[in-house]
């Protein structure tokens, strides 16, 4: 047992140096002002937080949450059926389908976004194809539609995979029992499959929503920078304006909001599990 604990040391040290210390620094910068290079001379200040409350930045935050929510819902609607199809496919095909889902993720996220740019751009691949078959051109990039498409494309696998895992673990006997007792397919889905897959759905939603709400670059490249998101704002503060204090307080606000959404999601998850237990008893 003691030896096992020793194995955890490298990770603990790693965590301390690269996660805890930076987090403390971000928290420190968010509540101070002054020269960032001179920690001793920082003065306490809540000005950065007051600035977050200005209407213009609130608008950016609201925009980020709205776009992240829409793309999460789209991923759920698109991803759930795919997860079902994959989980029901015969094992050989299933492996192949999973590969198709995972292979694009081997490529860098930035590269994939640039690829979307050349597909969706006004004179891009898609529009040339449409022109070739005599259809009108699509004017979606730069714009919010293109940003949403880019987000859904990038994050869809994170929705499909956890739902697939849960679905493929559902005991087939439940489905057979439902069938024997005369439930039709729709009833089986809504009464058995859907409730049992809630944990997968919850983790899928979390895994899509988190990167979606904090994403940057996508809105810049596919949206033409016209809908800056909170991630873009944070990047701008650190990389361009050199205002680490405001950047840090934006990051802290984002983190707090993510924690709140995670708490809500895990409560839903717990309720789902209770339902499940209740049903099992009955």
């Amino acid at each position, binding site marked *: 047992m003691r030896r096992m604990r020793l194995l955890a040391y490298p990770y603990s040290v790693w965590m301390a140096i690269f996660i805890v210390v930076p987090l403390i620094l971000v928290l420190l910068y968010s509540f101070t002002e002054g020269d960032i290079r001179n920690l001793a001379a920082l003065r306490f200040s809540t000005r950065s937080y007051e600035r977050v409350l200005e209407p213009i930045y609130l608008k950016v935050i609201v925009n980020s949450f709205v776009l992240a929510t829409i793309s999460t819902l789209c991923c759920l609607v698109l991803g759930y059926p795919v997860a079902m199809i994959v989980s029901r496919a015969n094992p050989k095909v299933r492996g192949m389908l999973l590969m198709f889902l995972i292979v694009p993720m081997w490529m860098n996220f930035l590269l994939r976004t640039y690829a979307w740019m050349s597909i969706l751009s006004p004179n891009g691949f898609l529009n040339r194809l449409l022109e070739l078959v005599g259809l009108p051109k699509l004017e979606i990039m*730069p714009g919010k539609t293109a940003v949403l498409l880019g987000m859904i494309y990038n994050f869809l696998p994170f929705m499909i995979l956890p739902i697939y895992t849960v679905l493929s673990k559902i005991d087939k006997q439940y489905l057979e029992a439902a069938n024997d007792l005369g439930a039709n397919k729709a009833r089986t889905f809504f009464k058995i499959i859907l409730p049992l897959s809630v944990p997968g759905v919850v983790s899928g939603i979390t895994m899509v929503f988190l990167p979606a709400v904090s994403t940057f670059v996508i809105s810049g490249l596919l949206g033409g920078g016209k809908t*800056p998101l909170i991630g873009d704002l944070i990047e701008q503060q650190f990389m361009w304006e050199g205002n680490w204090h405001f950047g840090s307080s934006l990051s802290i606000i984002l983190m707090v909001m993510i924690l709140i959404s995670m708490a809500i999601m895990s409560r839903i998850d717990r309720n789902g599990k209770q339902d499940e237990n209740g049903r099992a008893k009955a």
Partner: protein
Amino acid sequence: MKKKILVIIAIVALLAVSVPMSGCSEKVVLNVFNWGEYIDESLLDLFEERTGISINYKTYDTNETMLAKLEAGGSNFDVVFPSDYAVSEMIRKDLLLPLDYNNIPNYKYVDERFKNLGYDLENKYSVPYFWGTIGILYDKEKVEDPVDTWEILWNPKYAGQILMKKDVRDAMGAALKKLGYSMNSKNDGELRQAQQALIQQRSIVAGYYGDEIKDMIANGDAAMGLTYSGDFMELYWDEEADFSHIGFAVPKEGTNMWFDTMAIPKTCQHKKEAEMFINFMLDPDIAYQNAVTVGYPSPNTEAMQRIRAEHPEVFELDAFWPDDDIISRSEVYVDLGEYKSVYNQLWTEVLVD
């Protein structure tokens, strides 16, 4: 417990000793930090051949990344290539060492017009490396009107066909110049007007981009965009594709003239060798070869004369050699100091609708 503390102290002490030690190795290695694709890399080998000093060459993509690395500490760069306004900011933040011109005799080849400019009044800290302007890159097949004024970026005829540079200084600068003000304005009224112009322009702008503007216009995704003259030069020199339908114009109201410079940051450990390197880059032969490879106009008079003899046609291009009267109406960016945050705030308000 005491033992642990001792061990930690020992480790820290060792680290403290080993850092300066690494500086006294026998062979001098210069750490050169330049923009990507911004030098003829064979010259680095030539420098090593001639002087025995080897070069550790690294690149960055924006002044801000370079500044962030220097400011965060822990870097050991000997020569950096900041642009004009970044030079001012670095001087203000005390990040640069003054140059010893006794070690840089080739400074005499630098065009007098490009010496002692606003960003570094006596060239105490920096030597110009390449220069250029910002202007309008456009597709000749899509733009019928003559491109010679900033107004064209506000022409509703080209709604959805205009790309703006996602850069606070360049966008605000174009708006200020269109209104007849200085690009370095610190007048709140003028800045408000410039912001209003940009907000009004927003509805006809297709998107705000950075380096992508060049590729998007070359690809036919937009009719025109605000960008660096260097972007046009890259298309002009492209040997694989024909971009003769792409033009570049510097508006008659005047524009920003940018300079990328060579400077020595305070992190430098081999100042004399760093100055040798700067002197080497200013040598007419070297500057000529470098300018031919990079494709930008060099501030080196000798190198320019040779290029004029070989490629007289490029001196007809606005992007390479703007007219003297345009130059006389143009400005170099100076560090805005405290006003930087005012510009940033106004610009953020333009982007967030």
